[in-house]
């Protein structure tokens, strides 16, 4: 059986009935001989690449559907395979690019197998166009990122609105009460009522201040992670050392995620770990920001339901990053956040 001798009779390489089976497949199935010429081309291959079987069979696969920049590699790979070298591509799914009859490129998932038979080798490729899937994945990632940004922006706006609106009005009310109080004698029963109202107002203002701060600390917007983390650790119930924070500014979503990861992480440490101290470290290399929170507590924390860490993991993922916990040396826990981020 010499495959090169049968370009005009493509189905001859296949047992009777097999061509019908292949034509029923939704994925493109193409067969190629040892010279790299097309032996078989099913219907799905026609749909995917735009060549009819009679146009495809007998032509070199490389010229037909392999993008010009990959052709040499394709030919070298085939030659290497025929020389008896260990296969690098066979029997696994790989993602690559292919071109169609109209010259357009599309992303494909490809599996190449060698038919188990005597004589000259025949290779079969199973090709699935995954352009739509990849585009959908990209859009999903992008929309997840946008949702995170929108959530952060909403919190920033609430804080700003509270600052510019309710908080100013409450202080304005306090001033009005004070002006009123100055016009009432100390012994007057109104004086006690006004003082009571002022005390309530002071408490409300303080509560609102903490609420607004928790929504989004203004100092994070103004000064970045350094002053914001200093303020965060200053309010922590256990000593928290800061072991290096990049001085420069980072993209807003990255700064905000790093901040809230550490804020939530510190809350967890204080509540559950029994730790007596913790350390924050932020390192930045060429493409990755790595944030760690290490405590000396009893360990055993997991990213799961109720730990508050699951939400943090989702935020990390929305930035194409990762978040996990691991045992720290000495028995504590280390919370790690890694986010792709180039230095600004």
């Amino acid at each position, binding site marked *: 059986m010499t495959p090169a001798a049968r370009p005009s009779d493509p189905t001859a390489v296949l047992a009777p009935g097999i061509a019908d089976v292949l034509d029923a497949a939704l994925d493109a199935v193409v067969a190629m001989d040892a010279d790299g010429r097309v032996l078989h081309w099913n219907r799905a291959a026609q749909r995917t690449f735009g060549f009819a079987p009679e146009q495809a069979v007998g032509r070199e696969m490389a010229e037909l559907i392999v993008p010009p920049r990959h052709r040499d590699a394709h030919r070298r790979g085939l030659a290497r395979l025929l020389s008896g070298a260990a296969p690098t591509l066979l029997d696994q799914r790989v993602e690559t690019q292919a071109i169609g009859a109209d010259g357009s490129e599309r992303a494909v998932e490809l599996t190449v197998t060698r038919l188990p038979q005597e004589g000259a080798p025949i290779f079969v490729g199973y090709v699935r166009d995954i352009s739509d899937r990849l585009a959908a994945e990209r859009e999903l990632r992008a929309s997840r990122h946008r949702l995170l940004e929108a959530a952060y922006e909403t919190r920033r706006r609430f804080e700003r609105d509270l600052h510019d609106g309710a908080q100013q009005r409450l202080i304005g009310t306090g*001033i009005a009460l004070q002006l009123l109080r100055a016009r009432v004698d100390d012994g007057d029963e109104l004086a006690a009522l006004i003082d009571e109202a002022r005390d309530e107002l002071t408490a409300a203002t*303080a509560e609102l201040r903490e609420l607004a701060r928790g929504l989004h600390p203004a*100092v994070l917007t103004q000064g970045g992670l350094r002053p914001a983390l200093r303020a965060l*650790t200053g309010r922590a119930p256990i000593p928290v050392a800061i072991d290096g924070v990049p001085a420069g500014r980072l993209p807003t979503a990255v700064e905000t995620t790093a901040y809230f990861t550490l804020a939530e992480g510190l809350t967890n440490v204080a509540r559950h770990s029994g730790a007596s101290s913790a350390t924050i470290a932020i390192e930045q290399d060429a493409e990755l920001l790595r944030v760690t929170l290490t405590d000396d507590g009893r360990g055993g924390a997991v990213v799961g339901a109720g730990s508050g860490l699951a939400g943090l993991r989702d935020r990390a993922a929305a930035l194409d990053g990762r978040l996990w916990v691991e045992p720290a040396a000495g028995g504590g826990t280390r919370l790690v956040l890694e986010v792709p981020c180039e230095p600004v």
Partner: protein
Amino acid sequence: MSPSDPDGAPAPAPLRVLVADDSAILREGAARLLADAGFDVVAQAADADELLRKVRAHKPDVAVTDIRMPPRGEDDGLRAAVRIRAELPHVGVLVLSQYVEEAYVEALLANGAAGVGYLLKDRVADVARFTDALHRVAEGGSVLDPEVVALMMGRRTAQDPLGALTPREREVLGLMAEGRTNRAIAGALHLSERAVERHVTAIFGKLDLETTGDDHRRVLAVLRYLEAVGE
């Protein structure tokens, strides 16, 4: 700066004050409150640029300013305050802050603590505290909100260098950090000035700080110490 007793006795002439805040409610309210309390409110400003312009024109004894103000809507008021201190040493600045932030205090005191104040904004409605702060700043003293001092002193640290202080010494340290004079500390704690002096000497000894005559230098020394503890 009006000539007066450095320990806060009221100056004979009314203090000339400028009030800057982008909220009209607050600006007008504070101006009225100050006028009622006998201050001369020489001008108002609604943003940081107007603040700088009017301070240069009026040269008030004290400029009171919000931190977050136009044009950028970030810490523009704070930046203007730092500039005023550098440019016009005779104009004190009292910065009003919505939030207690050490970073604001550090920026404000970067070039010294004389004639500088930092108060939580709600304190405006506490006339006695507000007017006392204005007098102290006008006289070249320093004023720090008790909340920010409490935050700085409350920071948990591995070594706890303040652990060597007695509870009374911690109280005295806190009041020093707020910018109080020995006489004011004595009044607040019902002690004699001599007793306060002894506490101060003990505190500086325990914390290994150099004693200094000036109250605002003392504030700075104490704050630098507390900042370093938090590093």
